[in-house]
């Protein structure tokens, strides 16, 4: 049997398995909105751990990181800074978001912000920003899926068709089983991707260089420029290093698919352990990615699309059966994030827009049906974006993170009690100025003075938010006392909020 047939068959076998899981989840699902959207707030440590890491690491980690090591060298090992920071943010901020969600029944990030700032305008703007910037993330995953299947099949299945098939499968099991299906498939996908990337990198290291240490020595001899900062193309300047750390830690955490996961934990203790231990998974995945990218730069120095380095190496140098299993792991990495983003955008649009402004007081089945149609619309948008726009996967993710980062002052204002709370006008003004600054420092004058646009935009956002909040009326004392009182009761008062 030809190698491409084996590789492609294994990927399709994997897809079939996820569809079965989705339908099993559907049979176990209770017919209420909280179960469909939030897994009934009952996610324990193991399930939550694997869904968070699988969601955080996507095609970006599996393909994009290899591509970045390939193009820009050892500087991408800075990825460890943002993955560890994500753990600390989950530990400190995530538990507060969880506690408020548990106490007041929040389902989306906009629920929390609109409640505290007493503003429907805040709800709509937060929902719009959440959806707008995570649609870029759908594009990242869809492109990754297209790369994988076109390389695995030796271009017999086109990038466009591969993307479409995998998008339909992810949307299918999400529509069938809601967040329960997403979590169940994420457990499988999280474990599979971790094993796959390590096995793939080690096999290639031994096959091509005689081992990982020999690989590093070969890189030092053949491409010493890859082992220096700021890298061969001068990308990793101090400003970019710091900016990517901020954009890819805070920026990813403030995306709705991660914030919603905080709501779903069964206890605050689960979330604290999650924060402390997820960096182990997240950070160590970049160790094999470095082997793939740097080793690939020595073996295949003239690859047109850097993000394809891992599948290209596998197809050329690994046994077909192993290539299939590993590329199925790459498919898992992309799909586990894709389904989570589709789900979170469905939740935001159903809860914050449709249920609020279009059709109030309908039954749960109605909203679940609407949510499924929203997934179809998102799928079409994501597909069109993925086949018409191309860029480095990592660049797209950074842009997506920098956009979601603009929610930071608003969220911090809710979760960290201060003597002078932020106001709704302060948060809105800061958000718009932050987005404007992001556009200016990313598109018009990219990264002025070498400092990443994420840093410029969030600095401008905070500055305006603080200034305007000084001049405009704060939320009512009752609301501030209710929300901040709940935070203080949880953090300092020992209240558990556990059911």
């Amino acid at each position, binding site marked *: 049997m030809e190698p491409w047939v084996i590789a492609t068959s294994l990927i399709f076998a994997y897809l079939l398995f996820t569809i079965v899981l989705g339908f099993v989840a559907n049979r176990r699902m209770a017919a209420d909105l909280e179960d469909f959207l939030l897994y009934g707030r009952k996610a324990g440590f193991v399930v939550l751990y694997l869904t968070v890491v699988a969601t955080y690491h996507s095609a970006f980690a599996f393909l994009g990181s290899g591509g970045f090591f390939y193009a820009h060298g*050892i500087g991408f*090992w*800075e990825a*460890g*800074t943002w*993955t*560890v*920071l994500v*753990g*600390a943010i989950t*530990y400190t901020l995530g538990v507060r978001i969880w506690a408020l969600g548990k106490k007041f029944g929040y389902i989306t990030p906009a629920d929390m912000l609109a409640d505290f700032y007493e503003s429907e305008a805040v709800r709509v703007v937060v929902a719009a920003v959440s959806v707008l910037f995570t649609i870029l993330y759908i594009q990242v995953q869809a492109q990754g899926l297209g790369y994988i299947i076109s390389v695995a099949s030796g271009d017999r299945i086109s990038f466009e068709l591969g993307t479409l098939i995998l998008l339909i499968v992810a949307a299918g099991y999400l529509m069938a089983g809601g967040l329960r299906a997403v979590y169940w498939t994420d457990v499988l996908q999280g474990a599979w991707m971790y094993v796959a990337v390590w096995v793939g990198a080690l096999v290639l290291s031994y096959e091509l260089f005689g081992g990982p*240490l020999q690989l*590093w*020595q070969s890189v*030092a001899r053949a491409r010493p420029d890859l*082992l*220096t*900062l700021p890298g061969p193309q001068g990308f990793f300047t*101090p*400003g970019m*290093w*710091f900016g990517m*750390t901020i954009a890819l830690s805070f920026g990813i955490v403030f995306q709705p698919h991660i914030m919603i996961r905080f709501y779903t934990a069964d206890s605050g203790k689960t979330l*604290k*352990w999650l*924060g*402390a*231990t997820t*960096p*182990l998974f997240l*950070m160590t995945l970049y*160790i094999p990615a*470095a082997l793939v990218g740097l080793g690939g730069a020595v073996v295949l120095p003239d690859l047109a699309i850097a993000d394809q380095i891992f599948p290209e190496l596998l197809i050329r140098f690994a046994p077909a059966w192993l290539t299939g299993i590993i590329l199925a792991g790459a498919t898992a990495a992309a799909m586990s994030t894709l389904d989570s983003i589709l789900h979170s955008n469905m939740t935001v649009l159903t809860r914050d827009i449709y249920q609020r402004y279009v059709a109030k007081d309908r039954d749960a089945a109605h909203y679940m049906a609407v949510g499924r149609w929203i997934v179809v619309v998102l799928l079409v948008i994501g597909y069109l974006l993925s086949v018409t726009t191309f860029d480095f996967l990592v660049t797209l993710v950074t842009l997506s993170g920098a956009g979601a980062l603009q929610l930071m002052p608003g969220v911090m204002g809710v979760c960290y009690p201060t003597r002078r709370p932020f106001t709704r006008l302060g948060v809105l003004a800061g958000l718009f100025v932050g987005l404007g600054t992001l556009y200016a420092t990313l598109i018009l004058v990219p990264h002025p003075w070498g400092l990443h646009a994420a840093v410029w935009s969030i600095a401008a956002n905070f500055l305006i938010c603080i200034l305007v909040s000084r001049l405009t009326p704060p939320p009512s004392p009752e609301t501030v006392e209710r929300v901040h009182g709940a935070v203080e009761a949880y953090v300092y008062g020992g209240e558990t909020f556990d059911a």
Partner: protein
Amino acid sequence: MFLGLMVLVQPPIVFWIEERFRSAWLLGLPFFYVYLGFVYFAMIAVLIWTVRRKV
């Protein structure tokens, strides 16, 4: 302690380390790579220690 460790992997310290020890190797790997990995694991250890202490 966590923030102190984070400073060690941010500019300008991290760029100074890279430039100062560019040709140094440790455990068969570039020193810079090992340095970053060591600090990352130390930060994770701090987080786990914090949970176990129920802070």
